[in-house]
């Protein structure tokens, strides 16, 4: 590593930020692609219901539908509550 690179490396590495963001959004969009069309609306509806009680941001809720074998689909709901609202 050259001297200049040494000082540069203290700056934030934007490529790794890009990679992390992409991994998250791509995984999210793939799930949605493979799920039924009503899933985004279901997610919004559930968010509305929860927001009647607790104010949570939209990215703190995840709904997914997973196929387990031929017979069963599992609807998974993941809500992260902010620390002070528990």
């Amino acid at each position, binding site marked *: 590593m*050259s*001297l*200049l*690179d040494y000082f*540069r*490396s203290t700056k934030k*590495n*934007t*490529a*790794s930020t*890009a*990679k992390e*963001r*992409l*991994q998250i*959004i*791509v995984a999210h*969009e*793939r799930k949605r*692609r493979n799920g039924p069309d009503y899933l985004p609306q279901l997610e919004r509806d559930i968010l509305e219901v929860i927001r009647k009680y607790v104010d949570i941001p939209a990215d703190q809720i995840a709904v997914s539908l997973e196929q387990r074998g031929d017979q069963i689909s599992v609807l998974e709901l993941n809500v992260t509550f902010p620390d002070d609202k528990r």
Partner: protein
Amino acid sequence: MAKIIVVTSGKGGVGKTTSSAAIGTGLALAGHKTVIVDFDIGLRNLDLIMGCERRVVYDFVNVINGEANLKQTLIKDKRTDNLFILPASQTRDKDALTREGVEKVLNELAKDFDFIICDSPAGIESGAMMALYFADEAVVVTNPEVSSVRDSDRIIGMLSSKSRRAEQGLEGIKEHLLLTRYNPERVEKGEMLSVEDVKEILAIELIGVIPESQAVLNASNSGQPVILDTESDAGQAYLDTIKRLLGEQVPFRFLTVEKKSFIKRIFGG
């Protein structure tokens, strides 16, 4: 049997037409009878990149509408044997390509050609869908940049759900990742996604890495596909890509910064 290869990306301006011209020319150079079809209706550009813009008489839509036959419409490349171009129409009617029309033309081309390269328009609208629908293989052109990678992932989704092969339950389209405008220097500085990063996210087989290169602009200025510039890095990277497309194992080049002088190593730059 002709092989239909779509060159697609979702995002615009990433290098689809540059790559279609290079791939078509490369396959023809390797002795395969090849036609490059411009699916970018309304925004014809392949003719300029191939340097045959003044020889366009009829176009794709004329053939579909029965106003001209393929023989009158196909443009034979002047530099490369075995190579033909089917130009796009300049019509503003977005629905000028019908699925039946496209199928009819592709079926007729398939009788004569080994490879049919479909240069897709950007986006995920009907034009892009039409270009990928009949494909056997897909070259997904991607830049090492967030929006391009995300759009490529969407297109990969389309390839596996909205294509003829998907709808008829046939074996899926063979997908290849072509990373273009790669800048090893910026990758080493942590400013650009690396080949490995993009491979990991998109999870399809890597067919080539084309460096960001001045040779590409020079090539398009003069209407010569860059693969003919065999001295250039981009030209050589496309030649390697063709070999891989034809099943050869070729090591990847131009992935790292060239060795610099001692002074530069100390002080960077």
